[in-house]
């Protein structure tokens, strides 16, 4: 097991009187090599769950553990290093930096932590872009690519540091059916190579790609691949 959420609750104060709780008392274990699909309606808390796992937000209560390390106890440098080395990100919105070429965008994550820098970053980035069909377009800028090509470039960027976990937030939103198929095929191949994937989507059509599908509903999680069994019906005793 590499990711573990234990009785995690996340609250947002919209104003002085209104508090919303998209994630309430959720416990979840994600084992190495799993392809977890998180589905649910818009605003149900899917992205919040993904951000909690990534350490991009702190839980209001409960623990998020990566290899038994509580993210709350990590310094900013440790957390940043963890995200950089062990996690890859695919965002819902266009996230390539417009002032950098595609190749520079893909290489970008290798520049943050010099201690862990791997050699030949540019060659690996070029190879990844070649593999994803963007070999000829590595020197162009993001605005010169289609939405599908940009998504593929983002996938290349997410893989540049050879992470163990890939966190994808609606990677196929706003894409046509064919491009969606291409992206999902790439993710399936990546998973087949041993990558743990946690992907958020509102599309139930993508469930077949996953090893497990979880639905976020009313702040809790339902395992839709196991006859909608609730995962958080009782407070779990965490380590």
């Amino acid at each position, binding site marked *: 097991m590499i990711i573990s959420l234990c009785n995690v609750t996340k609250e947002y104060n919209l104003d002085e009187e209104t508090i919303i709780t998209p994630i309430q008392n959720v416990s979840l274990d994600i084992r190495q090599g799993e392809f977890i699909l998180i589905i649910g309606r818009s605003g149900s808390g899917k*992205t919040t769950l993904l951000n909690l796992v990534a350490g*991009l*937000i702190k839980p209001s209560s409960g623990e998020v553990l990566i290899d038994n390390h509580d993210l709350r106890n990590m310094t*900013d440098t440790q957390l*940043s290093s963890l*995200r950089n080395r062990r996690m890859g990100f695919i*965002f819902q919105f266009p996230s390539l*930096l417009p002032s950098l070429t595609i190749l520079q965008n893909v290489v970008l994550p290798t520049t*943050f932590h010099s201690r862990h820098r791997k050699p030949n970053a540019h060659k690996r980035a070029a190879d990844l872009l070649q593999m994803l069909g963007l070999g000829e377009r590595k020197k162009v800028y993001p605005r010169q690519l289609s939405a599908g090509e940009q998504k593929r470039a983002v996938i290349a960027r997410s893989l540049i540091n050879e992470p163990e976990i890939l966190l994808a937030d609606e990677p196929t939103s706003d894409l046509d059916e064919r491009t969606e198929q291409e992206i999902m095929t790439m993710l399936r191949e990546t998973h087949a190579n041993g990558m743990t994937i946690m992907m958020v989507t509102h599309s139930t059509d993508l469930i077949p790609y996953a090893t497990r599908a979880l639905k976020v509903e009313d702040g809790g999680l339902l395992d839709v691949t196991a006859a909608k069994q609730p995962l958080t019906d009782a407070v779990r005793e965490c380590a």
Partner: protein
Amino acid sequence: MAGFFVSITLIVKGADDSLHAGLDRLGADIVVVPEGAESKVETALLMGKPTDVWMSTDYIQKIAAVPGIDSVSPQIYLHSLYGASCCAVSEMFLVAFDPATDFTITPWLQRNLGRELDKGEVIGGSYIFVPPGQKDIMLYGYHLVLRGNLEPTGTGLDQTMFFTSDTALAMANSSLTTAESPLVIPPNKISSLMIKVTPETDAHTVSLRILRDVLGVFPIESPNLFGEFRHQMLGLLWVFLIVLILAWVLLTLLIGLIFSIVVNERRQEIAVLRALGATRWFVFRSVLFEAALLAFAAAGIGVSLAAFTIYILRDSITNSLEMPFLFPSFSSIMALLVTVMALSLVTVTVAVFLPAFRISKEEPAVAMRE
């Protein structure tokens, strides 16, 4: 802002350098002038505006008798005819000195010419030249041979021609028959006395003695020479300083505001960087570094443009502001450049600190959601 700062500093420094160079050129501890003619003489020396001031040659002995005085050298102030075809200026200030006692021009002559000036020979300020196509300079129909030019001082001395009193008398005699109007030098009259005090004596004490013992003249101590101008310049400097401080505060706030807007517009981009592994410190110093680069580029352009403009307009500055101006040396400009760059860096760091700190502390997920 950097350009404005450099412009003001260059003008003030140029004026100050010019005053010092002018005072060094005179080389006198005290200049004695006829009572009431102080400002006329100062204007003549400062701006090269010719003046007619006279006092009796009897004062040479009277002043020399004052205790504490080492040397006394008389000078006669004259002016060229309007529209003389000799020089860069239409009406020129002429100074006749006594070669036997002079310590203003003679040391320069010894260093550069190796001898004294003969009758009919002149030394000019840096702006004096022989008109193209002519062999010498003609004043009052009298031929003068230009033997050299003094180093620029930025003051009226640059537009002044120096010659011996013998030359002045010869020119006056010649002018009776050769000039449109004669050069008149009243007999037994001089315009000023240059004074050097003995090493062990204080110039101020000697000035007080002259004031007390010799009536009809006024001693101007060298540090007080151009005092009115210095006073005006100091006032101007204070105004500039206050304007500069106000502008600096406003500019710092403005840069802070602009960077707040810029950083706010790039929140999502910065959140992506954080998600990809950039630390808060990385974000903080990246924003500061970007601001510093912009500040360096802007300050560099501003400083260069200002220095270039001041250099090109240096003569206009002297004429329009009626102030002496000597363009500062290359090393002074380099020192100014480094100072302005450092000041720009400090300004930008102060201005951008808050927006950079804020964005580095923001939770990436919150920025991404927006």
